């Protein structure tokens, strides 16, 4: 590992690991929060260097067009979330929902989670990626249960069981992939390396690949939160600390979906294997429809946005299932924008819940009057996530619907209508939350709003103008995904 790029790759992994170890022993919570943010920032810097300095793929690690964007994205959101969590956690300490002991645990876990996700993104090895994702899952499980309220424990337990089953299925799929590969590539690490797999995939046994993909889709799909494997997701979002909800929606779901994408590229490189498209389309569509209707009866604000995450994961899966350069591009862009928007929404929601002292939506009203910044922030977020212009998500949904309608009109109509249904639900809630007579505490909010606005600015800009480099990467990947 002599070239500079690989040094930074190492940095992206080592910084979180080391800081996690440090945070375990660091007693002072203030300092811990700062160190947490600092580490996240350094990781982000190191990651963003990868844009320019890209090392040649190693046996275990790889940086290519697909993951470089997501690494930078996840480290960035990791950083902003750590900033947000600093102010959030401080409030939690005041209200005594968390004790310093748990807090130390929390910060350590946070960095471990970062480590796990970066590893999963960077790994050039199906097995390594599996281990990394499992690590990330475990840490989030522990953090979801951190409040130790019955509801939190229940959510954690549910997440844990379903997640483990998913992990098991994914592992089986991974083994199958190896089996498909090792007879061609030969035994050993190469048979699990991405770049090799994609190259040699045409020679693999299609039947084995089909079976493998089925297990992988279900396994990682559980993490993605596709219906009917979604059950853990809303409660996990609702009961955990808000920074974790943000990271879950913003990053972990993406990482799982990223894994699915990797395998899809392997699949689609093999002519004999069945096209993964229809499967993904149907799963995505079911998720979208289901989540859209589930939005209507929600009382808990965080759970509602959890369901909205399910919806958007469905949208992305749908897009990749439809395939074609435009739809794939839209899917990738949607992954990026959704994680930015949704995490920003969770920042906002976290502060709202803290100010109002409740997550129960009927008790929150008139935010634009009582807390203009939060209220309008929420309004902006909802408008953005609902895919209204000029925010970026409008662009992706535009592409998805138009390209789909040209090919499968019925699908597009159903898809579009369910988007409309979801929009109706979100807007209904927004009306109640942001407008009308204010209700509940009017205490001014002390919050770090910078992360939220940073995300919103990015989302807004993406709707107007996309940097050509990003477009080039995405188009390259889109063509790779077929």
């Amino acid at each position: 590992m002599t070239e500079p790029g690989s040094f930074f790759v190492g940095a992206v992994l080592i910084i979180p690991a080391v800081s996690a170890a440090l945070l375990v022993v660091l007693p002072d919570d203030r300092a811990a929060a700062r160190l947490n943010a600092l580490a996240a920032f350094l990781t982000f810097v190191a990651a963003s260097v990868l844009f320019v300095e890209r090392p040649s793929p190693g046996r275990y690690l790889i940086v290519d067009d697909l993951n470089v964007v997501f690494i930078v994205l996840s480290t960035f959101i990791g950083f902003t979330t750590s900033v947000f969590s600093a102010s959030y956690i401080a409030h939690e300490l005041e209200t005594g929902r968390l004790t310093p002991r748990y807090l130390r645990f929390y910060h350590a876990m946070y960095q471990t989670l970062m480590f796990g996700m970066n590893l999963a993104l960077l790994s050039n090895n199906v097995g390594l990626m599996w281990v990394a994702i499992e690590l990330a899952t475990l840490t989030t499980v522990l953090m979801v249960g951190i409040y130790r309220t019955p509801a939190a424990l229940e959510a954690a337990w549910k997440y844990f069981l379903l997640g483990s089953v998913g992990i098991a299925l994914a592992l089986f799929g991974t083994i199958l992939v190896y089996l498909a590969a090792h007879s061609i590539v030969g035994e050993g690490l190469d048979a699990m390396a991405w770049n090799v797999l994609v190259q040699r995939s045409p020679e693999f046994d299609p039947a084995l690949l089909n079976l493998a993909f089925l297990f992988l889709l279900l396994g990682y799909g559980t993490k993605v939160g596709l219906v009917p494997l979604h059950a853990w997701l809303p409660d996990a979002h609702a009961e955990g600390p808000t920074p974790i909800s943000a990271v879950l929606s913003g990053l972990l779901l993406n990482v799982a979906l990223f894994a699915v994408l990797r395998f899809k590229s392997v699949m689609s490189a093999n002519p004999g294997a069945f096209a993964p498209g229809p499967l993904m389309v149907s799963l995505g569509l079911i998720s979208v429809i289901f989540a859209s209707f589930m939005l209507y009866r929600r009382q808990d604000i965080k759970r509602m946005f959890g369901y909205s995450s399910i919806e958007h994961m469905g949208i992305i899966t749908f897009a990749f299932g439809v395939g074609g350069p435009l739809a794939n591009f839209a899917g990738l862009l949607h992954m990026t924008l959704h994680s930015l928007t949704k995490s920003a929404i969770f920042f906002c929601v976290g502060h709202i819940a803290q100010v109002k002292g409740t997550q129960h939506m009927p008790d929150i009203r008139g935010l634009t009057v009582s807390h203009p910044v939060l209220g309008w922030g929420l309004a902006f977020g909802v408008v953005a996530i609902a895919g209204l212009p000029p925010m970026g998500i409008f662009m992706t949904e535009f592409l998805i619907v138009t390209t789909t309608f040209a090919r499968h009109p019925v699908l597009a109509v159903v898809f579009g209508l369910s988007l409309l249904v979801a929009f109706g639900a979100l807007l209904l809630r927004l009306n109640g939350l942001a407008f009308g007579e204010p209700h509940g505490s009017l205490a001014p909010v002390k919050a770090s709003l910078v992360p939220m606005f940073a995300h919103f600015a990015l989302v807004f800009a993406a709707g107007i103008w996309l940097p050509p480099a990003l477009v080039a990467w995405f188009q390259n990947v889109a063509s790779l995904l077929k």
Partner: protein
Amino acid sequence: MALDALLWCIGALLATSVAAIPAARHRAGTPVVYGAALCLCVAALGIAVTSLLAGGSLQGALTLPIGLPWLGAHFRLDALAAFFLAVVNLGGATASLFGMGYGRHEETPGRVLPFFPAFLAGMNLVVLADDAFTFLLTWEFMSLSSWALVMAHHRRTGNAAAGYLYLVMASFGTLALLLAFGLLAGPAGGYAFEAIRSAPPAAGVAAVVLALALIGAGSKAGLVPLHVWLPLAHPAAPSHVSALMSGVMTKVAVYGFVRIVFDLLGAPTWWAGALVALLGSVTAVMGVLHALMEHDLKRLLAYHTVENIGIIFIGLGLALAFEANEMRAAAALALTAALFHVFNHSVFKSLLFFGAGAVLTATGERDMEQLGGLIHRMPLTAFAFLVGSAAISALPPFNGFVSEWLTFQAILASPALPQWLLKFLVPAIGALLALSAALAAACFVKAFGVTFLGRPRSEAARNAAETDRWSLATMFVLAALCLIAGILPGYFIDALAPVTQALAGAHLPRQGELDWLTIVPVAQSRSSYNGLLLFLIIALAAGLGAEAIHRWASGALRRSAPWDCGFPDSSPATQYTAGSFSQPIRRVFGAVVFRAREEVRMPPPGDLRAAQMHVQLRDVLWDTFYVPIAGIVSYVADRLNKVQFLSIRVYLTLVFGALVALLMVLAVWQ
């Protein structure tokens, strides 16, 4: 270069809206923001008008490196765009001018000022957009900013619901347009209008696109049965915004329809014309009937917007039918009628909404039953409103009559159509049009009579005061426009020539040079109308009559109490109210259209309580279309909601089931 200038104006508008966020906190912010908007709109108006009058010469297209990366944002200025830009910016300018005065009464300027210029910019951009993505982006941006303005007074009951319905319907329309463009662009994604024009779709596809465009643009323009949001949302906004939404935004929707159907879709089919015209006529009648039943002044105006949109769509439909049969001149006539009505309606509807706004600020009342006698307190407003009412009731010599007259001329050209359905349909449409015109007159007799005439019905109306100078200036400018466009229609029709030339391949003979400024759409022997002459003769006759009478007959005048049938000093409550005025028409049409129920509750003999009359109206369309949809959604939501409350084991079962099912599929598949 005209286009560059326009885009700079729009950019400046957007900048204004950003700057308005901090400016809204200061007292001086209001006039500054509106002033800036006014100047920019006037500038844009100037550019648009010059490029329209210059015909083809001042056109242009350019592409900005924003929006879809590989596509960029295409903008283009052609005759059609120029005309609608003129309409938009005229409305924008007057609304800003009105806002200078009206805005001072705004209690939460922070919720209005930032969105107002953004709304204007959005409407301008829609008209300029030249690719599907930019078009839809700006279209939805327009909806969004106007939604924010509707929500400005979110505390008043019903406004939040109105905003909700509005935005959902708007998104529904956008979805329809999205699908339409998806069809037009094809899977390859040729979103630029140029590409679409170069490859006109097949007949079947074209039919679907037309239907989708009708839904998409119609839901924004307020075409029955997609109009339900309009009478709720338009009045909810501040009055000058209501004027913009009713007078201008609906026109932008019409623009969208014209752009797609006339420009992008290639040659139309005759049944498309029949469909559009029929929808238009139904819309017109439904709109005016609803308006007659309405006692809320602003909502009444909003319903009249629905009616006028119907009239416009009648014109468009006829144009389509003629064009399908290669009758270019007739198509040009119909199109001219429609577009001219677009302009006229934007003028007098803005005027009327400003009047309503003035009344609102003076009395704080929108309910006509609480008003009355305002003509004594606010004579100037009353005068302007009267002009507007005459214009919208299509009475000569005002502009509303001219465009309806042209529409009738177009209808009279219908027997030349080969299709029998059209032969029979078009006269029926004509009858409906005449009916709606007559009803509109009745409705505005009610609106003006009950609001401004008679005796005040409430304390607020009794102590009303004339509104501020800005508002009055705005209203009189518009009133003057109503008259000018009414007596000198020739020039306006000539200005429309390039548009119809571009869309229908023909234009009306030049009217400007004809003696006495008569307008002769087809031929002198066939039909002609001379607003100027008519106006002069009437003025002359009235003047002579007055002169003669005051010269030779008695000019004496005595004031006394009105004839009271021997019941002295009757209270204002004994006047005819809006409800009682529309009662005969309710009796005639209500039973069918509204399922109207009237019941009179008589107290038992000896009981001194007053008898009460209860009128119950139902919107049949609402009951048939919207209630079921809402019901279905909530039903499904309830059903699915149970899934939230299962035990972990059941969730595991779901996973297991999915796995087994997929394995089986695989086993079978192999």
